[in-house]
């Protein structure tokens, strides 16, 4: 299992984009992926400090040489200002998840212990459920989900990855 995750992670690329914060930009980018048969594993988008520019993080899988085409095609879009494949350098990535689990009296302590180990937070409690918040990289989230599965995950919402290059590596105009 761990091997498999690692292998997937290797063929995956995390692409960072600066795009015009304009209606239609997201559609163009999503359309490019679907129209040319590229995969999207996750996509996040939100404005930057400059409200006219959004930053997008796209995680895509590479089948062959395609990643180079993907990046060139993205650069060709008029609404796309900058594109970088973060995997070419060192970078940090994080994802947040909200996970609702069943909280039976006999497993409450167990859930709290796991949340604590993973430095998560309980953000909602009801008679029968706990909702927890967790932030981390892919492996951390995967490990947590695996531990919670036997207890009973009712639903889960993940943000998709956001990422930044380390240190002086900055994506700017």
């Amino acid at each position, binding site marked *: 299992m761990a091997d498999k995750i690692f292998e997937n992670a290797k063929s995956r690329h995390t692409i960072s984009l600066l795009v015009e914060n304009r209606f*239609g930009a997201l559609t163009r980018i999503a359309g490019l992926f679907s*129209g040319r048969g590229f995969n999207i594993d996750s996509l996040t988008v939100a404005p930057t400090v400059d409200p006219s520019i959004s930053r997008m993080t796209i995680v895509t899988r590479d089948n062959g040489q395609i990643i180079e*085409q993907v990046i*060139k*095609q993205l*650069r*060709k*879009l*008029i609404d796309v*200002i900058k594109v970088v494949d973060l995997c070419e350098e060192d970078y940090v990535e994080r994802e947040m998840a909200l996970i609702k689990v069943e909280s039976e009296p006999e497993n409450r302590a167990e859930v709290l212990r796991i949340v604590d180990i993973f430095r998560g937070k309980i953000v909602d409690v009801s008679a029968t459920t706990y909702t927890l918040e967790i932030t981390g990289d892919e492996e951390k989230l995967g490990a947590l989900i695996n531990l919670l599965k036997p207890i009973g995950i009712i639903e889960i919402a993940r943000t998709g990855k956001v990422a930044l290059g380390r240190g002086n590596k900055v994506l700017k105009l």
Partner: protein
Amino acid sequence: MKKSGAEIFVECLLREKIDTIFGFPGGVVLDVYNVLFDAPLRHILSRHEQGAVHAADGYARASGKPGVCLVTSGPGATNTVTGIATAYMDSVPIVVFTGQVPTRIIGNDAFQEADIVGITLPCTKHNYLVKDIADLARTIKEAFFIATTGRPGPVLVDLPKDVLAAKGDFKYPERAYIRGYNPTYEGHAGQIAKVVKIIARAKRPVILAGGGIIISGASEELRQLAEIGQIPVTTTLMGLGGFPATHALFLGMPGMHGIYTANMALSEADLLIAIGSRFDDRVTGNLEEFAPHAKIVHIDIDPTSIGKNVRGDYPVVGDAKKILSKMNPLLKKEEKDWLKDHEEWLREIEEWRKNHPLTYNNQGKKIKPQYVIEQINEATKGEAIITTEVGQNQMWTAQFYKFTKPRTLLSSGGLGTMGYGFPAAIGAQAAFPDKIVIDIAGDGSFQMNIQELATAVQYRLPVKVAILNNKYLGMVRQWQQLFYNRRYSYTCLNSNPDFVKIAEAYGAVGLRASEPEEVRPIIEQALAIPKPVVIDFEIDREENVYPMVPVGASIRRMLLA
């Protein structure tokens, strides 16, 4: 003084030095048409919006200037889609303006509403919906800028009725600045120097020139390159006219219906210099077996063309004209007897040419389509503007007309749109009223935009239509003959109309030739008539286009006549 959106729109066109537009009116663009009524600008009314877009496209391809098209919302807009996709595939600079329902009811399934921006997203270089009159002038400036720069292409601007009716200040920006759009023109100097060395080392080089040569206006530089280096040249369908077909170094078009010598040269070359060509599958055939011995130099303005279908060993991104004019002086400086160095290679090519020339059987009493094209070529000295439809007519034209000048062949290469040629000829004639413009047509394709006869007649555009009438969807029939055991499923056009009468009914002239002796005199007769003329050439019905490379085969595996 405040101007209405409609006035600003027309003013912007004038600022862009647009003197002719092609269009078709409707409800939401009435305000614009009201301004056009007495504007110093020619509007050509097509009879179908597809015709208007193809005409704008033909105008652009023939002149190098942007083509402009104006239509109404909903069905007017959706009727433009084929024309836009055609221009997109062949990198043609057109700007299509569509009317749209008022902004406050967009998304409500209003009368004649279509999400044309959504529909054309994948077949435009870029598109816009203008929601505020304050953005109108800048958007139009950007639209022309994007359409005509870098790798050109169609841009669509959607104009809601209320934006056209609103009043606003008019200020036309001097320049468009788009931070996400910076085409590369200058090739990388180091890479150019490297390529020169690679070319100097090659023993069996061949140039593959595509439409990019014509778009960038690099024909002269291409000729110099070929002559300095004594390098044979093959041009794709889109590149025909970019290098004189009468030149000793010209090999003809390669690919599925390519000339034997061109396909063999590509297959045996040790260096392929591709310029402004995106390696369409109709050119390469089976990719694994394409140019198997060659290193590939790939010069293209569009980085996505490089490495997409074919590995580019030495890519140079930039404008063909700019790059070639830097390369040529460097090549000249190479201390080298090019002719002597390529002697063996050129001799081999000469052998192919001699042993497998482009031929057809011109015996018998029936008119051969190839003969018609040869005669048109002679009668026009290879200098007419020729448009084609799609099918056998297109391939025979590419093979038998000797194009010597750029922008003289207008043909839908990438999309292969039947019905393109006739409206495109109208657009070309509008750009060049005094030139001979001939649509070499198929009987099937001509019927796809035959209504544009009314446009040609109304605006006295004396285009000629030479129908190679085989009463078949001939190219499809050819495939059925060769690969489907002669099962001619739905490709027979026995109930074609009488094209002579049709022409006459529209107020054009109709002529017919049924025997080979009539061909040349009828061509001369048609060329002498200063009106639109339709010539119905009743050709040998089951004539085929050869050479032919079956789909998926290597281009050296040609079926010959």
